[in-house]
C-alpha cells in the first residue's frame, strides 16, 4: 500500500513532514531528509528579523516553550543562502511564510514563485511576534483575505497554518478554505509562560512563548478532529507527535498528513522512524 498523499496539486511520497522552525538542513547530518514526505522551512518574512533575546526556550512538563521570534534572514537572503540546502536534501520543500503586514505574505510568495519550493505554508499563528503572526490568525475575515491574496500571487499549493489560541477554529478553517487554501495545518504552539522563582523573573527573554511537545498532543488532536469534520481539503496534524502511535492517532482523527516538531530535538531521526512505522502498520492485515 502506498503512503503517498496529495495536497492540492502537490503529491508527497509519504505523509510525514518536518514542522517549521524545528528542522534546518543541519538535520541532514543526523537523518535522511530525502526519505520524508516533505520538510517545512523556518518561517520566512519579507525583511530580515533578528529574533527575540535569549533565553529563547525553556523546558516544561512533557513539553517546552519557545520564543524564537521568527528569526530569519529575510526572503532574498533566504532564497540565496538557505533555500538551496533545503532543496538539496529534501524530497519536497514547503516554505513557511509569515509577515508583519498583510501585503507581506503575498510579496514573499511572489518572490519565491521561481524557485523549486513545492508549496507554501502560511503561518498566521506565531505567538512570538508583536505584530502580525497570530493576530491575523484569530480573525476569520483576515484569514480569508490573506488566503485569497496569496492564492492570487502563486500557482503553488498553499496550506494555512492555524493557531489553537482562538475561540472558534472551525470557522477560521472554513474561511481559509473558501479563500482558496489547498490544505490546512494545525496546531501551532499555545501561549505559555514560565517563571524562575529565584530571580522572580520570566524564564524566557521575551517573557512569554509558545508551548509544544507531547503535552499538547491531546489539544492538537482535538482541533484536528474538529477541523477535519468541517473542511474538505486535507488537514495536516501537528502537535506533540513523538512516534508512529501518535501519528496514527492523528490519522484516525482525520489528518491526511502530519508534521513533526519538538520530537526532532529529542530524536532527529523521528520522521524516518514514523515513515517506517506507518509502512509496517499499513501492511498489517
Amino acid at each position: 500500500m502506498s503512503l503517498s498523499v496529495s495536497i492540492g496539486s502537490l503529491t508527497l511520497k509519504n505523509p510525514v513532514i518536518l514542522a517549521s522552525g524545528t528542522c534546518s538542513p543541519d538535520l541532514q547530518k543526523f537523518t535522511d531528509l530525502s526519505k520524508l514526505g516533505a520538510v517545512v522551512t523556518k518561517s520566512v518574512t519579507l525583511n530580515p528579523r533578528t529574533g527575540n533575546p535569549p533565553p529563547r526556550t525553556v523546558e516544561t512538563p512533557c513539553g517546552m516553550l519557545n520564543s524564537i521570534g521568527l528569526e530569519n534572514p529575510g526572503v532574498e537572503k533566504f532564497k540565496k543562502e538557505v533555500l538551496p540546502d533545503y532543496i538539496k536534501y529534501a524530497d519536497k520543500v514547503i516554505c513557511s511564510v509569515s509577515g508583519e503586514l498583510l501585503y507581506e505574505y503575498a510579496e514573499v510568495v511572489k518572490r519565491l514563485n521561481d524557485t523549486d519550493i513545492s508549496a507554501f505554508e502560511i503561518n498566521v499563528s506565531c505567538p512570538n511576534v508583536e505584530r502580525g503572526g497570530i493576530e491575523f490568525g484569530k480573525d476569520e475575515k483576515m484569514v480569508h483575505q490573506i488566503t485569497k491574496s496569496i492564492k492570487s500571487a502563486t500557482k503553488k499549493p498553499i496550506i494555512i497554518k492555524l493557531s489553537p489560541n482562538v475561540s472558534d477554529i472551525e470557522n477560521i478553517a472554513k474561511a481559509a478554505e473558501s479563500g482558496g487554501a489547498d490544505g490546512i495545518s494545525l496546531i501551532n504552539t499555545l501561549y505559555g509562560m514560565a517563571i524562575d522563582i529565584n530571580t522572580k523573573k520570566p524564564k524566557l527573554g521575551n517573557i512569554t512563548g509558545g508551548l509544544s511537545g507531547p503535552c499538547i498532543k491531546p489539544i492538537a488532536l482535538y482541533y484536528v478532529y474538529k477541523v477535519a469534520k468541517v473542511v474538505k481539503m486535507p488537514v495536516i496534524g501537528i502537535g506533540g507527535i513523538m512516534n508512529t502511535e501518535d501519528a496514527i492517532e492523528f490519522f484516525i482523527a482525520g489528518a491526511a498528513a502530519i508534521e513533526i516538531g519538538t520530537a526532532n530535538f529529542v530524536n532527529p531521526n523521528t520522521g524516518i522512524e514514523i515513515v517506517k512505522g506507518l509502512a509496517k502498520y499499513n501492511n498489517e492485515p
Partner: protein
Amino acid sequence: MIIRNKEMAKIIKNNKVKDGIFLMSIEDNGIAKSASPGQFVHIRVSDTYYPLLRRPLSIHNTEGPVFEILYKVIGIGTKILSEKKEGEKLDAIGPLGKGFNSQLAISNSQLAIIIGGGMGVAPLYFLAKVINSKLKTQNSKLKILLGAKNKDQLIYEKFEEFGNVSLTTEDGSIEYKGLVTDLLLSTLNSQLSTLFACGPIGMLRIVKAFAIKHKIPCEMSLEENMCCGIGACLSCAVKVRTQKSEVRSQISYKYVCKDGPVFKAEEIEI
C-alpha cells in the same frame, strides 16, 4: 560528524567525585575518537517525556574508545543521570559544536592560560591535556587557574599532572581566597599570552574585559538553553556585535551549539 543512534553508548563508570559532582565514563568509539576539547555531547537522560529534552554536557576527557563527562546535579536531568549504573546504555549524540582552537596556544603565545570557574572546569581538562602535549615540543608554557565557591566544589586534582596550577576559593578553604579572575593579572607575565576560559557568566565578563584591555587573544566557552544541539532550532542564541565600520556596529546572533560553545571573546556580547 558522528551520528549516534539510540542507546549505543555504554556507561563504564559513574561515580561521585565531590559534593553533588559526578564523573561518568562512557564507551563510545565514535564520539571518543573524533572529539576535540570544548565540544559537547547531547544526552537523553530518560526515555519518557519528562524530562523531554536532551542535556548538553562537555567532553571532559577521552581515553581510547572512552570519553568522560564531569557534571553537577542541578535539576531533574542531571539527577537522573547521576542515578545511572555501570553497564547501562546511554543515548548520546556527539561530539557537537566547535571547540577550542588549541593551536592558538602554540602559534600565538609563549604562555597559554587556562582559567576555569565552578563547573567551567569540565571541558578544560581535555583542553589542558591536548595543549600540554603540544607544548612539550615547544618553548611555551601552560598555566592553569581554577576557582570555585569552596574546597568541596573545586575539581583540581587531576589538573596537577600538568604542574603550574593555582587555585582559588571564595571562602578561602583552599589556597587563595577570592575569585579566580583575581589571579589573572599576576599570571600575565608576557604580552604573548593566550587565554582559554570557561565558567559562570560573571567570570567570563571579567575575563573578556581583561583580555580586551591587555589585547590578549581569548577564547571562551558559553552556555545557553538548548533544544536540538545541532543548529536547527535557533534556541541557543548569543548576541554578537559585528563592527561594520569604525562607528557602526550591528547586533546579530550566533548559536552556542553550532558556532560555539567556544567563541572569541571579542565577538560576543555577554
